[in-house]
């Protein structure tokens, strides 16, 4: 009877989504009409617009300045596409998807108790699917096309990815103004993987107690109301933070601070797990966590070096900075733990590596190897403190430290990017003050909006599972499955 009541709730939730999906289907069918008309509106970009390596491998020496930088997606000739850049960006996209599934899914799943392992994996996987569909419907369009109001979001020209075309006979296709040498489809998918991992990161804060249906609602709304706007502000040239000169090469602010602060909001709104602080809640299988951390590391090359949107020297420098900073952070965390607690733990070194990856993310394209070491060590030490002492002090149950590692690590990275950005490498100087503006905006906007969305979902679907369901474990109570 309790059961049945629940099923009802689920069904409602489910049905709701189902409806959504179906509706979009109609739209979809509508939107398959050849987009030639639409496409031609955009002026074909002169081949010379191709920049950097594109030009290079095309054998010309055209400096980027040669043509006015385009400000919106446009149609180009097949010949303007650089196959090397495209190869690297498709690879990067695959790598970043691998970061979430199975990477992050395993990283988190290994830290929960055995009765919640499947539910934890399910969160990352379901978010991957949900975000992809929302991204296709409207996410990409409002985040990465120019908007009219710098404080608002982008336009709707890419609704249902209409107008993102490849025209076989005319030998033409569209490119994003943010990546002129690769197909727009690839750029849109690359960004999709970023939109996927950000909400997935939040799951670390409310592990082992959130209702699956509520999680879907929260994530879906959060993506559109929080992620897309912030991504637009920071990364789309017409966004206000971008024009202010905030530096965020691969998403320290947009992805990590953003996810981390939302995580804190969930930890506060959902409250602690039953028995938190009393019972031992040791990670049930750190083998999974270590596999996850390793795949995160490997995939992060796509995340950071891929953010150069080219297969060039800038990407190479980001690649090196990422690898070195991660190693430094992992060792820093390990040694601090070793000295303070007497033993270096597997969870510790893995957490340190992730902290380093997070902190180098905004800096990767702006700093060299040595600055990367400084950022790494700082992230390792500071995140160790925030995930242990600080958490204990305030007593919130940021279960898997999405806030402690991603938000704090992201802040460390964002500010140090301002301090250490090298003009030689990036051509632009960083400023701690401007970085603070980006950080502050994200913290405030992200936290407030997350709290509001959570409240709404709580009043409608209900955020938390029943005490019995929590005790039995989410695997069985939410998904009717169990790991032997």
């Amino acid at each position, binding site marked *: 009877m309790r059961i049945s009541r629940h099923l009802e709730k689920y069904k409602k939730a489910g049905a709701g989504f189902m409806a959504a999906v179906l509706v979009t289907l109609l739209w979809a069918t509508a939107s398959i009409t050849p987009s030639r008309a639409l496409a031609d509106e955009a002026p074909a970009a002169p081949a010379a617009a191709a920049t950097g390596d594109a030009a290079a491998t095309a054998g010309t020496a055209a400096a980027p300045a040669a043509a006015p930088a385009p400000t919106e997606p446009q149609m180009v000739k097949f010949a303007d596409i650089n196959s090397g850049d495209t190869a690297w960006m498709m690879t990067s996209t695959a790598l970043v998807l691998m970061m979430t599934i199975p990477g992050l899914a395993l990283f988190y799943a290994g830290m929960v108790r055995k009765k919640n392992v499947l539910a934890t994996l399910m969160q990352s996987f379901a978010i991957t699917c949900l975000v992809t569909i929302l991204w296709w419907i409207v996410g990409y369009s409002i985040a990465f096309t120019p908007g009219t109001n710098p404080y608002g979001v982008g336009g709707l020209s890419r609704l249902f990815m209409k107008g993102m075309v490849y025209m076989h006979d005319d030998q033409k296709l569209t490119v994003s103004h943010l990546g002129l040498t690769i197909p727009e489809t690839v750029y849109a998918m690359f960004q999709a993987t970023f939109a996927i991992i950000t909400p997935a990161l939040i799951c670390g804060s409310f592990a082992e107690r959130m209702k699956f249906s509520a999680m879907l609602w929260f994530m879906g709304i959060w993506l559109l109301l929080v992620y897309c706007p912030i991504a637009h502000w920071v990364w789309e040239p017409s966004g206000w933070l971008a024009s202010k000169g905030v530096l965020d090469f691969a998403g320290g602010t947009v992805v990590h601070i953003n996810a981390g602060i939302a995580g804190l909001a969930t930890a506060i709104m959902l409250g602690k797990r039953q028995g938190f602080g009393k019972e031992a809640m040791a990670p049930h299988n750190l083998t999974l966590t270590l596999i996850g951390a390793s795949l995160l590391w490997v995939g992060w090359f796509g995340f950071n070096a891929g953010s150069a949107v080219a297969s060039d020297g800038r990407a190479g420098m980001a690649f090196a900075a990422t690898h070195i900073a991660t190693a430094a952070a992992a060792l820093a965390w390990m040694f601090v733990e070793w000295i303070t607690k007497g*033993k270096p733990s597997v*969870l510790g070194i893995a957490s340190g590596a992730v902290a380093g990856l997070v902190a180098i993310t905004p800096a990767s394209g702006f700093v060299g190897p040595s600055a990367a070491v400084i950022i790494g060590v700082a992230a390792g030490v500071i995140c160790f403190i925030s995930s242990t002492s600080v958490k204990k002090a305030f007593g919130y149950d940021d279960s898997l430290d999405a806030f402690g590692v991603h938000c704090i690590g992201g802040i460390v990275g964002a500010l140090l990017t301002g301090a250490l950005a090298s003009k030689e490498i990036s051509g632009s100087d960083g400023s701690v003050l401007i970085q603070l503006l980006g950080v502050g905006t994200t913290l405030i906007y992200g936290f407030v909006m997350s709290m509001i969305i959570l409240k709404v979902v709580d009043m409608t679907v209900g955020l938390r599972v029943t005490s019995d369901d929590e005790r039995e474990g989410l695997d069985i109570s939410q998904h009717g499955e169990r790991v032997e």
Partner: protein
Amino acid sequence: MKLVTSIVKPFKLEDVRKALSELGVSGMTVTEVKGFGRQRGHTELYRGAEYSVDFVPKSRIEVAVKAELVDRVVDAIVQAAKTGKVGDGKIFISDLDRVVRIRTGEVDDAAL
């Protein structure tokens, strides 16, 4: 017949088994259990936070033997399982009304 149930340190299982088969007791049933007692468990780290695990893994060995064998069996187990350190475990002896070998239907001593 008697049922001799002993709780020993897992790495002593092999020794106990040898000792028993020397007495001609080849059959036994072993269960992996969690033991609570004077011996404290180790402490674990979790994101730098430490907490102690208060149980210790133990092996529970059940052997059904003829009454007259009990003393020698107990001695053998004690010899084999002893390390002198806290946590070596316990032996419980209880009475069995009957024993049946499923394969043959034989009962009592014949079933052992």
